[in-house]
């Protein structure tokens, strides 16, 4: 009987262990599924379908009377026509109006604009030039070439019809169209056309926002932490501050967005969609995280160090700033990195203050309209075009890789500077 009961008691233990291992495995498998599914979706956005055009232009057309290049004339020139007529040379059989329209749909709607920019950048001398340029195919042709558009479904349900497929295939056979590294993704800002959309605008927006966040939150948090650890007299005010700090750390991030909307935008009248406002809101949000981490770090410095300083005649302020703070710096930095990683991944408060706008320009100042990386991901995954999904996934991969390396840096810093007193 005793043996039986021991057996069942042991079985219970084994079961508990199995529950634990299953749970951990489930969590790890989910992590792997998440990353792998996004990776599989996103890797193909590293490539983009381009086609090569041989184009002859006469730069005399774009100079003013004195011979200097004239942007106005350049903008007025019919670049789309130039691209289209060059494309038609490959398919002389296309005559019909509707057919022509279908043919032009396989190249990017921005092809003319891109050509203009390329030629502007080349700064050609005067005279006529023949050059071969690589321009984007349309997102549908691009998705077809990557095998992302299934051609088994009926033609009328497809975004690309049989004729267009034949044209794309013939371009590929003639070695005119091919998949190349997608440089545009890393060098341009958002666009209505997936093939011209890139993450640079949102990366710079995020960088500007985080700069404001760290400049705002770090000094305030460190000063608050020093105050709470060394100068605060125990009492109601101190207790109240502590309760507030702990609570703010658990307030939903969207509430900070509402705060930013009603205080920074409508009361102070700061500009909408600006990294300045985004940075302040995220700063308020990460402030408690950094305060808590800084306090923990300051508290881990043995009191003997401070007491030795005080004993040698240093004032309380000198003991705190000259002796404790330098030793607590690694811990504070670790907390700051974790707070910044949190701020970098945050989306909801930024939606509230209008950083969700469609912005084609790369932001240059703290008050210019901008968007941030997670918001860009959100906007792209909300779009109808299939090609935006893969761009969204690729952007996620970059964001997650960056965040993981930030967190790893924090772990390494903690390990390196960890001291046993």
């Amino acid at each position: 009987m005793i043996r039986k009961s021991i057996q069942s008691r042991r079985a219970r233990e084994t079961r508990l262990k199995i529950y634990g291992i299953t749970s951990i495995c489930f969590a790890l498998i989910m992590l792997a599924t998440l990353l792998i599914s996004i990776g599989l979706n996103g890797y193909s956005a590293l490539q983009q379908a381009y086609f090569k055009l041989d184009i002859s232009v006469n730069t005399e057309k774009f100079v003013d009377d004195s011979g200097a290049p004239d942007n106005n004339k350049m903008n007025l020139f019919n670049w789309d026509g130039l691209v289209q007529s060059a494309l038609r040379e490959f398919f002389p059989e296309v005559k019909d109006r509707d057919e022509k329209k279908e043919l032009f749909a396989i190249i990017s709607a921005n092809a003319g604009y891109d050509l203009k920019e390329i030629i502007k950048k080349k700064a050609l001398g005067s005279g006529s030039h023949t050059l071969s340029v690589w321009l984007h195919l349309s997102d549908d042709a691009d998705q077809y070439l990557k095998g992302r558009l299934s051609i088994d479904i009926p033609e009328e349900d497809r975004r690309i019809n049989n004729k267009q497929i034949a044209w794309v295939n013939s371009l590929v056979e003639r070695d005119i169209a091919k998949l190349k590294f997608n440089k545009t993704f890393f060098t341009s800002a958002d666009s209505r056309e997936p093939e011209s959309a890139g993450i640079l605008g949102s990366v710079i927006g995020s960088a500007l926002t985080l700069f404001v966040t760290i400049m705002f939150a770090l000094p305030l948090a460190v000063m608050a932490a020093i105050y709470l650890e060394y100068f605060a007299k125990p009492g109601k005010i101190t207790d109240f501050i502590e309760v507030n700090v702990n609570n703010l750390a658990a307030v939903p991030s969207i509430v900070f967005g509402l705060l930013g909307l009603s205080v920074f935008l409508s009361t102070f009248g700061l500009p909408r969609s600006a990294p300045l406002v985004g940075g302040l809101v995220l700063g308020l949000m990460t402030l408690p995280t950094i305060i808590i981490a800084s306090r923990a770090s300051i508290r881990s410095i043995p009191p003997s160090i401070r007491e030795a300083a005080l004993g040698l005649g240093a004032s309380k302020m000198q003991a705190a700033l000259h002796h404790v703070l330098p030793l607590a710096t690694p811990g504070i930095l670790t907390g700051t990195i974790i707070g910044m990683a949190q701020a970098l991944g945050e989306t909801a408060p930024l939606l509230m203050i209008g950083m969700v706008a469609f912005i084609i320009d790369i932001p240059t100042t703290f008050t210019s309209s901008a968007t941030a990386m997670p918001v860009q991901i959100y906007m792209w995954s909300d779009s109808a075009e299939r090609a935006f999904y893969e761009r969204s996934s690729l952007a996620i991969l970059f964001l997650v890789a960056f965040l993981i390396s930030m967190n790893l840096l924090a772990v390494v810093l903690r390990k390196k500077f960890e001291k046993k007193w």
Partner: protein
Amino acid sequence: MTLPLSFVFFVLLGLSVYFYYHAKSGIVRKAALLSDRTKALPSHYGQQSFLWAFIPSFLILLVLTIGGPNYIDQIFYNKIQELNPTFNESFVSLILAKVINVSNGKISTGEENIIMLAKDYKIAFEQLHFYRGLVVILCAALLGMIISYRQKPGSNAREQVEKFIVNIFFASAVIAIFTTVAIILSLFFEALRFFNLYNFFDFIFGLHWAPNVAIRTDQVAAEGSFGMIPVLLGTLLISFIAMCVAIPIGLFSAIYLAEFATPKIRDFVKPTLEILAGIPTVVYGYFAALTAAPFFREIGFSLGLDVSSESAIAAGAVMGIMIIPFISSLSDDVIRAVPQSLRDGSMGLGATKAETIYLVILPAAIPGLVGAVLLAVSRAIGETMIVVMAAGLSANLTVNPLESVTTVTVQIVSLLTGDTEFDDIKTLSAFGLGLALFFFTLLLNIFALSISRRLAERYD
């Protein structure tokens, strides 16, 4: 003459640094003249001068930079209204916006009046920038000179500087209080304006949520109705599903990690789970909308069930995955905080490890575990991006996890991301929801924190 912000700031900084060195060397000279010693280190006198020169002028700069443009806008608003007394408010704002854009050179116009106003506007701004720079620099110079003149070797500069710095430190700590107060006040006042337009009890107890207000006043359309029960129910449903995933998995992981795992496994699993916690919520939202939702739909289809493409279960399950590391790391800390003596006592009486866990450790840790779960619930209720991307917009009064429901945060986002006016009832209703959300999570947090603190005190 234009004085841009960065120029003024750097001149201010430069002046302050100058006064630092000026005072530092000045006090030594003064002491030498009196053949006396300075009471504090010379650098303390320098710091005192720096603070005097920098802080007040910097505050003036801040106020003028934030308040100045608003003041000018107000002047021009009044001017436009005086010129055209018949225009209504929104039209005047429109003209003002046009004037501002013309003066920035963002748009061009042929209207004479606007060009004139834009010119005036530009001049006003230039004047503002000029006087801002002048006032700030003069103030810094004046205060710096006064303090350098007044400093005597006998005065204790260190004490004064330190007192001042402590006050600055205190002010930064008080920002936490200010933030909370600002959140409450801003949500409260906007919500109050909403309750002026809409009955409070209809909001709290209403069973119908459809914030579609007529766009034009003459349009025949249903009045918007703002009963938050269906929205709240949707929030609770999704949070409940998330908890069904997160609590068992998080707890069992924590128990295994704290009681059974070898240090090697712990060192691998803990950071890996932390990666799960570090992934941005927008990524989970993407995963929920594009992978999990079709997956559940497929499964439902094969079982003959009709699963909505924005089902509560997809959003809830993914949210649960997001919360697993949150619960597991908090519970892990709580379980490890249970004193070793309890474990040893139980084992010494012949209990197995499982019995020790079930009968001794978990009962001892229960307050902390409840606290962790409550914090997780508050997190689930306030979570935004997953539900914005994967849950629905229409407020169905249902507890069926296969249907589409909406949540408080989804409604706030959808009401505030459109181009609506700030005093529109839809915009204001979002603040009503925000207030409800804030208080709900606040109560949960306070409760959770007080429970956990009680546990910590018990075993200290």
